[in-house]
């Protein structure tokens, strides 16, 4: 098992955000983590990458306990994180944004692989990242996270707020990510997410209420209600 999270409890001050969340991901698998706003999905990803320290529980990555390791150490171990606000380096160009990841990984060929996956970025290499469109920024954010052979990618709402045409292209790119990395995908765009993922977890009020396949969700009315899936 690539990632094994057991009984995670995370607090923001007195607020008990994650209440015993357990989740696992196998190699070359896309796992969805779905739920309404405020249920703790982003907090879960932040707990894995180390921006928020859990109070209880364990996070095992490739069999190693990484629960309380610093973020930069986890990144070096092979965990990539793409936050929901993308957080590019706005004053650096597209190429410079990609080069920052190359310096860390020492793998110059990573940029070429990313440009094959996101060919739209080839014409934008000299443009400052802050001047890219939303879809272009998302592509750059994912591309940068990929450099350095990440075995696990944490994607936080990569499709939110983008035009349908861009969403379609990103969905294809995310599906291709499976060839090299496992992905934990947090999304509010439920329909799009269910088209991509192999397995899915659903959260409500800081807890996991469902674990299964996209097909099983379509048969479960209670879970659909909590996700507000429209027919």
């Amino acid at each position, binding site marked *: 098992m690539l990632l094994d999270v057991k009984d995670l409890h995370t607090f923001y001050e007195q607020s008990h955000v994650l209440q015993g969340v357990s989740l696992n991901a196998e190699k070359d698998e896309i796992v969805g983590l779905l739920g309404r706003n405020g249920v703790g999905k982003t907090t879960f990803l932040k707990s894995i990458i180390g921006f928020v320290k859990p109070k209880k529980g364990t996070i095992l990555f490739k069999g190693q306990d990484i629960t309380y390791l610093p973020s*930069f150490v986890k990144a070096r171990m092979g965990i990539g994180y793409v936050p929901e606000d993308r957080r590019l380096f706005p004053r*650096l160009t597209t190429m410079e944004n990609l080069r920052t990841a190359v*310096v*860390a990984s020492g793998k110059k060929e990573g940029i070429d692989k990313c440009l094959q996956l996101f060919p739209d970025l080839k014409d934008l290499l000299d443009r400052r990242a802050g001047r890219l469109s939303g879809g272009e920024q998302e592509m750059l954010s994912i591309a*940068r996270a990929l450099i350095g052979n990440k075995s696990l990618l944490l994607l936080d709402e990569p499709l939110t707020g983008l035009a349908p045409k861009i969403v379609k292209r990103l969905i294809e790119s995310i599906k291709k990510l499976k060839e090299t990395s496992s992905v934990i995908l947090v999304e509010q765009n439920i329909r799009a997410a269910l088209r991509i993922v192999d397995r899915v977890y659903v959260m409500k009020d800081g807890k996991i209420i469902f674990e299964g396949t996209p097909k099983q969700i379509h048969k479960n009315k209670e879970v659909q209600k909590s996700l507000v899936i429209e027919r």
Partner: protein
Amino acid sequence: MDRLKKYQTLLLFLFFTLILPFISISVAQATDILLFGFFAISFNILLGFTGILSFGHGLFFGLGAYGTGLFLKYVSVSPLSIAVGTILATIVAAIVAYFCTIRRGVYFAMITIAFNQLFYFIFFTWRDFTGGDDGLVGIRRFIIELPFLPAITLQDPLVRYYFFFMIVGISVFFIKRILESPFGLILQAVRENEERTMCLGYNVNSFRFASFLLSGLFSGIAGSLYCIHLRFVGVTVLHWMFSGEVIMMTILGGMHTFFGPFIGAVLFVFLRDLLSNFTMHWPLIIGLLFIILTLWLRRGVLGRLASYLELRGT
């Protein structure tokens, strides 16, 4: 040809500073511009390139000056004094960096001011050694003896200026190379977004420490040369207000450009010398001008010019 293009701004800077004594009011003014400009470029490693605002950077300039001055006065009249001043500034920069680079925001700023004022009061009260508020006087300039060449004294202002020009030129070249290297790219990434930089696998605190150290080292060299220029060190160089002046120069010139701080220093020294002929309240006028220019030219003089050229596709 490509290499020449890569270094064109550096060559322009060197040419400008080469002719500066002949286009300034006096060689003394040119020397002030050169050394304060160098100090501002050094400070900008931290502010413009790493995104860290220190309110106590005058400390390292001052320690460079005092280290050199005390060595020249009490130990030996030798070029080694520059190394002594620089090393003193660098060691203290490492200590300050250790305590403050793990902090952020207002806590970081308060620690830098606190260290600055700590040393100010030490040098202010230690009159027997440092001269206190009378300043350190009686500093002699060394003679440069090179094999097969006549000895070079630094008494002549123009000779002294070009001696400083040589050291500043080499230092600025190194600073530029460092900031254009992969290390410099990561400093900029830290400036843009620390969390994201950590996600890429960088220990951000280590980079903040290294940036602080480099900035302190080069600020120390600037201070050391300033001591040799004046043959005097006033305790005001250790006051936090002097730290404020280098912030003003840097922001005025453009903190997101490499040579912007130098332009800021040119403007500052020029205005200071011009206005002080008419009024003793020149700091008030410079302060007002700074407010107006900051509101009007938010990216600084050179920053605004760079944006304009970028928009035009140049």
